[in-house]
């Protein structure tokens, strides 16, 4: 390759798109490093505090697409205070100052403000794509500035954000000249929607492929929208409590029939049975179905719908479908690759929903299954062993038994053997979430067999520090380790400090780690940010004489090349 001019090498690099591969290329030699950095357009930053925008831009001046992740994963479950950090404004300010030609911004778990959205919309002439996942801090006013100012907007994708809906007219802020929309997802908005503006917008967007409406869009509007956009591929519908009258129903059916390219369906926060059945004609084309918010749909209607979906690859559903429903899925959806079964009753009322039987049925019926997230009431080792045998191809295996520390309900044993079977059989396993009663033994198995494991979530598990040590020593590819309510302490934490340099982050909450242990870690590893999160005054930890032995509430540490962050709130103590 050294005999080729740079331009040729660069052209070759164009075909290398994955971040991992590009990172690997840049390490080969200085000249490749140089060529790679000038040609890199897409950058992924898994932890926004691992680097700062200035350094990013110095290395990749031709940046066009940036992905940033902010808060740690457990922030999703309210374990991280709202004000912890993850502010996007400094990034946008820096990018704006540098005049880089930003076209795409994807953010996850970050704090976004209207100010940052406004700045974003004004600073980058070619800005095309905004994807916000689980973000917060902004309102529809911010969306209005994006709509108004981004002349070439292609994607506006808002997934599960907390948006203050000012019920303004953000949809009418799209100028009449805006015809480039491909993705429009505002399902998470709670307020009323200007239907007229929406219909006009959809009508003048011939490239629109993905449209996800919020709950405020009524059935007849949906039918009209589908008529305007028969080319739609991905549709998110609203909330339909009542069965439509016969005329509306016929219109809806007619509109749906025209959408022959429709492959993905979601929404249905509420769906009266007839609304659902109107979709039956296109079900045979569907590859993705998300009914996980449809709390009010009875299992039988769900099953009727699913029986038509023979080509389904991805299914997100509520556990109200039951084991029987999962058996139907197993016998119908032979192409299934990803399944998520969410709990419908979050107060732990004990309504059974799904058990190990559903999981086994799925594993037996769906040979292509590689990703699963399964909330259930109970599990057995035998079932897990069977699942492992049936599906050795798991990449992501996340099992959540709703009651913490619950053992095998038949043998009353811990579930070590079951999970052990999973990690042993699934050689490509990258992500694993554990639950149920677990001893150190399961971690021994994980350390021994889970060679590809990158992310591990542990809750209420283990007996001693050995558990955590098995994992840290064994899983060479570990990137993100998050632990809560498990008896791992300083010994495990400090055993191999250099390990954390190979990982993105470690989260430990309600474990046995002490303040002095964390301090020692911080001393040994200045390239780590060791953050202690306490909701009270951190000063109190010092005052208390027992300072060293005081257990730390929440510990979050991550490697960084830019040192301590300056934007931490008072209850976050960076050692």
């Amino acid at each position, binding site marked *: 390759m050294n005999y080729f001019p740079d331009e040729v090498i660069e052209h070759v690099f164009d075909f290398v798109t994955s971040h991992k591969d590009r990172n690997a290329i840049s390490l080969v030699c200085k000249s490749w490093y140089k060529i790679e950095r000038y040609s890199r357009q897409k950058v992924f930053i898994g932890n926004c505090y691992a680097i700062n925008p200035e350094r990013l831009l110095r290395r990749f001046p031709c940046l066009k697409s940036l992905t940033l992740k902010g808060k740690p994963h457990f922030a999703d*479950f309210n374990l991280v205070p709202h004000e912890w950090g993850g502010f996007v404004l400094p990034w946008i300010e820096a990018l704006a100052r540098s005049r880089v030609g930003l076209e795409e911004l994807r953010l996850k778990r970050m704090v976004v403000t209207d100010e940052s959205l406004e700045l974003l919309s004004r600073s980058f002439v070619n800005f095309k794509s905004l994807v916000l996942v689980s973000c917060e801090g902004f309102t529809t006013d911010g969306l209005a500035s994006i709509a108004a100012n981004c002349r070439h907007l292609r994607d506006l994708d808002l997934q599960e954000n907390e948006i203050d809906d000012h019920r303004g007219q953000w949809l009418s802020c799209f100028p009449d000249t805006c015809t480039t929309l491909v993705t429009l997802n505002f399902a998470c908005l709670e307020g009323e929607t200007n239907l007229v503006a929406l219909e006009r917008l959809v009508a003048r967007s011939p490239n629109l492929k993905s449209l996800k409406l919020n709950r405020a869009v009524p059935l007849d509007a949906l039918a009209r929208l589908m008529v305007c956009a028969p080319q739609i591929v991905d549709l998110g519908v609203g909330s339909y409590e009542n069965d439509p009258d016969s005329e509306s129903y016929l219109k809806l059916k007619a509109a749906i029939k025209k959408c022959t390219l429709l492959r993905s369906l979601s929404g249905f926060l509420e769906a009266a049975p007839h609304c659902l059945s109107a979709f039956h004609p296109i079900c045979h084309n569907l590859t993705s179905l998300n009914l996980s918010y449809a709390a009010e749909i009875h299992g039988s209607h769900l099953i009727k719908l699913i029986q038509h979906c023979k080509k389904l690859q991805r299914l997100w559903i509520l556990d109200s479908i039951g084991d029987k429903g999962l058996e139907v899925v197993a016998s119908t959806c032979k192409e299934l690759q990803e399944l998520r079964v969410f709990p419908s009753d*979050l107060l732990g*009322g004990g309504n059974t929903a799904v058990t190990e039987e559903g999981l086994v049925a799925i594993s037996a019926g769906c040979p292509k299954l590689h990703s699963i997230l399964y909330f259930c009431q109970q599990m057995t080792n035998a079932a897990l062993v069977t699942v492992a045998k049936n599906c050795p191809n798991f990449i992501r295996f996340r099992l*959540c038994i709703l009651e913490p520390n619950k*053992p095998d309900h038949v043998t009353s044993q811990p579930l070590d053997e079951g999970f052990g079977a999973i990690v042993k059989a699934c050689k490509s396993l990258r992500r694993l979430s554990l639950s149920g009663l677990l001893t150190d033994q399961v971690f021994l198995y994980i350390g021994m067999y889970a060679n590809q494991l990158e992310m591990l979530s542990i809750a209420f598990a283990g007996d001693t520090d050995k558990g955590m040590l098995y994992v840290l020593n064994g899983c060479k590819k570990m990137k993100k380790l998050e632990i809560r309510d498990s008896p791992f302490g300083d010994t495990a934490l400090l055993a191999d400090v250099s390990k954390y340099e190979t990982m993105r982050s470690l989260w430990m909450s*309600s474990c046995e780690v002490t303040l002095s242990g964390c301090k020692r870690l911080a001393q040994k590893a200045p390239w780590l940010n060791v953050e202690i999160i306490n909701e009270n005054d951190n000063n*109190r930890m010092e005052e208390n004489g027992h300072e060293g032995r005081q257990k730390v509430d929440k510990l979050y540490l991550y490697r960084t090349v830019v040192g301590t962050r300056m934007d931490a709130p008072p209850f976050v103590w960076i050692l």
Partner: protein
Amino acid sequence: MSTEEELQSNVSVASSSPTSNCISRNTLGGLKEHNYLGLSDCSSVGSSTLSPLAEDDKATISLKATELTLGLPGSQSPARDTELNLLSPVQLDEKPFFPLLPSKDEICSSSQKNNASGNKRGFSDTMDQFAEAKSSVYTEKNWMFPEAAATQSVTKKDVPQNIPKGQSSTTNNSSSPPAAKAQIVGWPPVRSYRKNTLATTCKNSDEVDGRPGSGALFVKVSMDGAPYLRKVDLRSYANYGELSSALEKMFTTFTLGQCGSNGAAGKDMLSETKLKDLLNGKDYVLTYEDKDGDWMLVGDVPWEMFIDVCKKLKIMKGCDAIGLAAAPRAMEKSKMRA
């Protein structure tokens, strides 16, 4: 109604030592609760006792407070609750505060039961820790569940304190099903967005199993001048009084000089209309945005109707609230809805 008598005497003692009230701006029982939980910097009574009140009352009140809050460390002192709303009986289902870390999952079941079943966090354990409660480590770990394995790291946990910063507390959710499982923060691991969406959906539809308020109903609470907003679960309160006191606690840090506020209000029977007076007295007005997008004064309509229509709360400065929807309009609206 021995409760009331005790409480009457409580109130008089409380108002006679206004300085001790400074930590909590609650007119009615802040003193008691702080001392109950052993916040030693609040009173001279000492951290291990339950109440700073007159000697003769102390024993009874202590006992009372103990009974009512067994296994519910950090929850509102029931006596205080009762003072706020003497119309309703002392409630066992205390409501959680929402600290910086929302802990909407933290609903603790009836204490006695769980204590008996060998949980780690028996009330006696928490009592022992009062003496060292100085560091008042916020904790959301006061879960209790029957098969607690040895993995629970309990010893370091202090009882969540009832201080104005709004520490989390476990509550007794008496409306939950008989299984009455304790709930843990962040468990099951489901995104808040999902929880909220499902909860709203459930609320909107007819109650299938007759369980009122089967989901949480979170609304944002903003306050003029506060740097950030909070969220509260309206379903976790039974009346305006509880909501008011919870909000007070939450936003204490942002208000000025509210020490020793009018104890007179405490003596009144706090009906819904009186809530306005209470808040007006402090120069703040609690308002809410309803389904139509209008900003209304809190307290005009019956509580059940209120939580049905309330989308957002806002604590406005009294002067800003002039011209806000007055009672007649609210009644009109409620009539229309009925």
